[in-house]
């Protein structure tokens, strides 16, 4: 490689490394600060206390959805592994909204409950036909029963 190219290669690699380090630091800093959503346990731990409006993300607890008879008002509970948060929302919900679905609600705290102005449904990265899902659910349920019976045996 001749000296001119050698020099250009060195300069360009140096610039690229500098920009990569800068970008990595920005990404690292944003990971600390840029939260698209907070989970109920994070909110209860006070992580979201510096925000007036924020997004709350988690699963809709099964059996918690209650619709008002005379308006579009819906109340439900959003849960994550370590916390639960009652949510109130007036408006039309997305089609995917249902029990045990991940949702992201934008809104603010009103005492202990969260008043949402927008509710979005989140879906996972799994795609499969309904028949396969049912078969898997059945197999999964079967496994649970096995595990339960095993535990019973151990207890005995």
């Amino acid at each position, binding site marked *: *490689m001749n000296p001119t*190219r050698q020099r*250009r*290669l060195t300069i*360009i690699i140096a*610039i*690229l490394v500098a*920009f*990569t380090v800068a*970008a990595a630091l920005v*990404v690292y800093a*944003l*990971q600390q600060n*840029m*939260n*698209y*959503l907070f989970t109920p346990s994070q909110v209860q731990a006070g992580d979201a206390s510096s925000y007036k409006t924020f997004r709350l*993300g988690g699963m809709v607890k099964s059996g918690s959805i209650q619709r008002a008879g005379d308006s579009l008002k819906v109340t439900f509970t959003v849960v994550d592994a370590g916390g639960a948060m009652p949510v109130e929302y007036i408006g039309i*919900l*997305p*089609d*995917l*909204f249902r029990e045990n679905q991940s949702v*992201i609600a934008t809104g603010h705290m009103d005492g202990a409950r969260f008043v949402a102005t*927008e*509710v*979005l*449904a*989140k*879906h*996972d*990265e*799994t*795609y*499969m*036909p*309904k*028949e*396969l*899902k*049912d078969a898997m659910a059945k197999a999964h349920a079967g496994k649970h029963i096995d595990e339960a019976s095993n535990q019973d045996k151990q207890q005995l």
Partner: protein
Amino acid sequence: MANWIPLWLHKLSSPPVFYRFAGSLRPWAITLAVLLGVIALYGGLVLAPSDYQQGNDYRIIFIHVPCAWMSLFIYGVMGVAAFIALVWRIKLAEVIAMASAPIGAAFTFITLVTGSLWGERMWGTWWTWDARLTSELVLLFLYLGVIALYHSFEDRRQGARTAAFLALIGIINVPIVHFSVNWWNTLHQGSTIRLLGPSTIATSMLWPLLTMMAATKLYYIASLFGRARVDLLTLESGKDWVRQIAQNEVRG
């Protein structure tokens, strides 16, 4: 040229050789791209079963995901070509980098539009400023910046080298787009197809997706070769080999 670069690659980087090579490969690439594209669409829209959760609405994945892959892949190609252009000043590398930009911008635009349509149906919103969506939008702006910078110079080679610099720096955004769903809490779901580890999609839905990926790759090759051929003719318009082609055209 450094001697560690294989001889055939060195030969291919000569404009007349590449012009002929691209010209002979292009018809095959475009034919295969259309064929595979039709097969993939039939497989995705007709043969594939509907999803357990999203019903038939998920079928936009067969356009959205291959286009999203291409938006990143083309940026990668453009970045590498830009790097070669900046260090070794190879004319073909400049042409490849600059010809890739509009194709990549188109794929990025399609990704954003189809994603927006899908988001409206499934999430309940056309747009949200989560990390994946925002970084993909930045990718579109990078492509547009490269195109604009290239055309803002009187001298095309000067423009190509300046734009190559932006293309090279912007390549940092590619891993950010890809890993944004892992690094931040996003509305956008994670990757379905994983090179390491099992993919989370049924086989009946996977094959049309991979077929479409092959089709978009071949379309890129065909489109890139067509654009590169025209650019080479323009850049080398005073050279003997171009005059030869022009004379043959007139006589023919």
